């Protein structure tokens, strides 16, 4: 084999001009291939680790209360955070934060602009495992022109704000000026606040010019969240491609809710009873099923199972001496603050139950039930009745929240959002998505860019390979007598073939190496160019420069692919040369 390679190398050096030209075209092809794959890697990197991670997070726990598209609140923050920590190992997480933002109208100095107010978790992330370099990169993407980052934490100002230069110019504000903003909080109530400019920044990305930043905890308060309440949470992972879907699936499994069960005291006049209070699902199908399990002995059926329906078991109603139309109080302890909540309920119906239904309990339509449940989350229910989700009756009861099925892709997710209003969820919906579902359209877009770039390069290569075939055919023709000679002195057919293949292999190898080096040189030079007014394209740039991301395995795969393709291309003419009869070859004249 060594001899074959030495012969191949010698032959390569014989037709220098032709081989240099062919080698150069292969080198250019490899250069373009390496640059294209590095560029698409760079674009995908920007997408996943900059755009999508900021916009959607790699894993997103999205919450909506009572079907409200804008009411993004979960009443037990610690619960979700603990589940995230249980599911995803800490060393797999880069950051975990609440996603808090609102459209706002800002007014200052007689100027008014629309903006997005975003809560920045500056030094208050739920989890922050960013390396110093990553933190530096984030800070550098928002270049401070005046003021300092730490001033966003100032306690002497009610609402310190960091504003992009463009917005500051529109509002004609300078450092330490005030800006009034109005927006609607999570309940839809109009809220207003005075924000003080503590820093002016220049953003890399034109989309970020619409954003004004205040400390996340302050914005949460303005939006109406209590400290133990949660906005949607975004988790960014170290390896989203490997783990994104996996952790989203696992977290989803861990977030299955239990039946919402309140234990408290019902009171009517002087009579009291310690009793469980539950909600029943109010959709048509569930109500139909419930009517098979409980039988109304008193009260109007339509009213009893309507939105404000309140039902009591017969034994309890008799014990308390109340009948339909009477009102009674129900008091229970809250999970937080040690307070109690008392609701006044009007009895719509009295029932008896079958099967495992307990003798004494109260049942409310879920809409009525949730109207006070979320704002005053009860402590863990004691009491004798612990309904089970899997039994017939348990399946018809309202749960602590509603865990939506995992979406397959963005279309599925968009359809889910469209159906929100139609489904009329009465409880809090919890949805777990990975970036692949939240932004599958964006991911597909990145794949399409990748595909287009590669197709372009493949087309170019096809052209090069046509030249390669032609060159090898010419070489075989020119060396026909030589082939005849070496075959006559005993070289086997396979050796003749391999000699041509070795020559092709060596040319491609050297050309690929040269092409790779050229690619790195050009990528370096192109990345020095600054694109100041790139408009939409700026979202793909890093610090206004094109971001190439070559990888070792990517380059090796590209080079290997080129070598294989050229060898395959050279195989047919090489085999034809090997099959030549020595006697015929020796008689050949050009």
């Amino acid at each position, binding site marked *: 084999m060594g001899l074959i390679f030495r012969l191949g190398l010698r032959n390569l050096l014989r037709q220098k001009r032709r081989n240099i030209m062919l080698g150069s075209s292969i080198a250019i092809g490899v250069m373009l291939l390496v640059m294209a794959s590095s560029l698409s890697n760079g674009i995908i990197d920007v997408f996943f680790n900059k755009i999508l991670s900021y916009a959607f997070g790699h894993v997103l726990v999205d919450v909506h209360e009572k079907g409200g*598209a804008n009411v993004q609140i979960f009443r037990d923050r610690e619960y979700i955070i603990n589940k995230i920590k249980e599911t995803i190992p800490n060393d797999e997480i880069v950051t975990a934060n609440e996603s808090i933002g609102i459209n706002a109208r800002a007014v200052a100095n007689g100027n*008014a602009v629309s903006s997005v107010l975003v809560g920045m978790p500056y030094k208050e992330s739920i989890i922050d495992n960013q390396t110093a370099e990553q933190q530096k990169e984030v800070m550098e993407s928002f270049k401070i022109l005046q003021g300092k980052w730490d001033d966003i934490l100032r306690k002497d100002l009610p609402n310190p704000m960091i504003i992009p230069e463009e917005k500051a110019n529109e509002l004609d504000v300078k450092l330490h000026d005030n800006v*009034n903003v*109005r927006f609607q*909080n999570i*309940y839809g*109530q109009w809220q*207003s*606040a005075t924000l003080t400019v503590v820093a002016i920044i220049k953003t890399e990305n034109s989309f970020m010019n619409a954003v004004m930043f205040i400390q996340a905890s302050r914005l949460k308060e303005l939006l109406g969240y209590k400290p133990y309440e949660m906005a949607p949470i975004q988790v960014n992972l170290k390896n989203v491609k490997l783990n994104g879907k996996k952790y989203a699936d696992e977290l989803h499994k861990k977030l299955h809710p239990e039946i919402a069960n309140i234990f408290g005291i019902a009171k009517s006049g002087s009579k009291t009873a310690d009793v469980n209070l539950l909600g029943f699902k109010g959709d048509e199908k569930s109500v139909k099923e419930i009517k098979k399990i409980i039988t109304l002995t008193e009260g109007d059926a339509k009213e009893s199972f309507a939105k404000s329906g309140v039902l009591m078991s017969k034994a309890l109603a008799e014990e308390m001496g109340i009948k339909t139309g009477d009102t009674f109080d129900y008091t229970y302890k809250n999970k937080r603050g040690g307070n109690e909540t008392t609701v006044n309920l009007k009895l719509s119906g009295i029932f008896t139950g079958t099967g495992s239904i307990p003798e004494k309990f109260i049942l409310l339509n879920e809409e009525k039930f949730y109207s006070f449940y979320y704002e005053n989350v009860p402590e863990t229910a004691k009491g004798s009745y612990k309904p089970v989700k899997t039994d017939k009756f348990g399946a018809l009861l309202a749960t602590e929240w509603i865990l939506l099925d995992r979406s397959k892709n963005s279309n599925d997710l968009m359809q889910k959002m469209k159906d929100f209003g*139609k489904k009329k969820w009465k409880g809090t919906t919890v949805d777990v998505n990975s970036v692949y579902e939240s932004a599958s359209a964006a991911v597909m877009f990145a794949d399409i860019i990748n595909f287009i770039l590669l197709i372009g390069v493949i087309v170019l290569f096809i052209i090069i390979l046509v030249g390669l075939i032609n060159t090898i055919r010419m070489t075989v023709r020119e060396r026909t007598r030589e082939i005849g000679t070496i075959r006559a002195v005993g070289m086997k057919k396979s050796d003749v073939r391999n000699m041509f293949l070795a020559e092709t292999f060596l040319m491609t190898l050297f050309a690929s190496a040269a092409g790779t080096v050229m690619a790195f040189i050009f990528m370096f030079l192109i990345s020095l160019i600054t694109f100041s007014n790139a408009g939409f394209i700026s979202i793909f740039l890093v610090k206004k420069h094109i971001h190439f991301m070559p990888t070792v395995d990517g380059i090796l795969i590209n080079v290997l692919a080129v070598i294989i393709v050229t060898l395959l291309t050279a195989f047919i003419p090489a085999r034809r040369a090997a099959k030549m009869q020595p006697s015929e070859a020796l008689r050949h004249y050009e």
Partner: protein
Amino acid sequence: MKKIVMICLGILMGLSAFAAPTVEEILRKVESNGELKTDGTAKIVMTNQKADQGAKVTEAMYYRKDSDDSFLIIMLAPEADKGNGYLRVDDNMWMYRKNTRTFQHINRDESIGGSNAKSSDFEKRKLFELYKADVDKNGKEVVTEEMLGKIPCYKFNVIAKVNDVDYPKKTMYVEKENFITRRTLDYSLSGTLMQTSSFMQYTQIEGKWLAVKMLFVDEFEKGNKTLVEISNISTKKLDEKIFTKAYLENLSK
């Protein structure tokens, strides 16, 4: 002695007849005075003035069914919106787009047509269910009497009982004679005056009062205001078929 007690009681009763009503009483009367228990049709013209832009005029026809509070709105102007519409039946609200001939379901808290109005704003909810008196530091309601131009009014402050209202705090001016709202000052949660609503003109229909000319002045962003005028009011019974998607689609052609 008995006579003195009787006279004192009589004076007290007489005085109480002249005492200001409570906030809840006023709100209930306002609600009752404006509660039209018939079907209704009206033309609505909204002139929206923004500080740095000209006036934009929006016209629409409004149909309402009293029995279930369904309604249908069809846009008449501007030309870009003509033929678009909104339909609400029970808990469902849809937006119709003439260009695409499609219906889109609107969530309760979604904004309508990019405006500040939401689907939930059209729900029939009573004032006294949404608001209660804002008491002073002594825990007392304060209802004063003031002149609004030439109109004697009760003036009082209310705060929201529920979370899902636009303005959690209001100052209301209610005409003494007819218990109709003449002005409200709408405040944000933090107490900033956001909007002044003036109900300049009313008309009486079947014994009820309906505001036909209203001015909403944006107090946050000076220079913005919206004038709403209602005309062509009819209380004729409406056909059920009006409150259907098919009718809306046909109407917009």
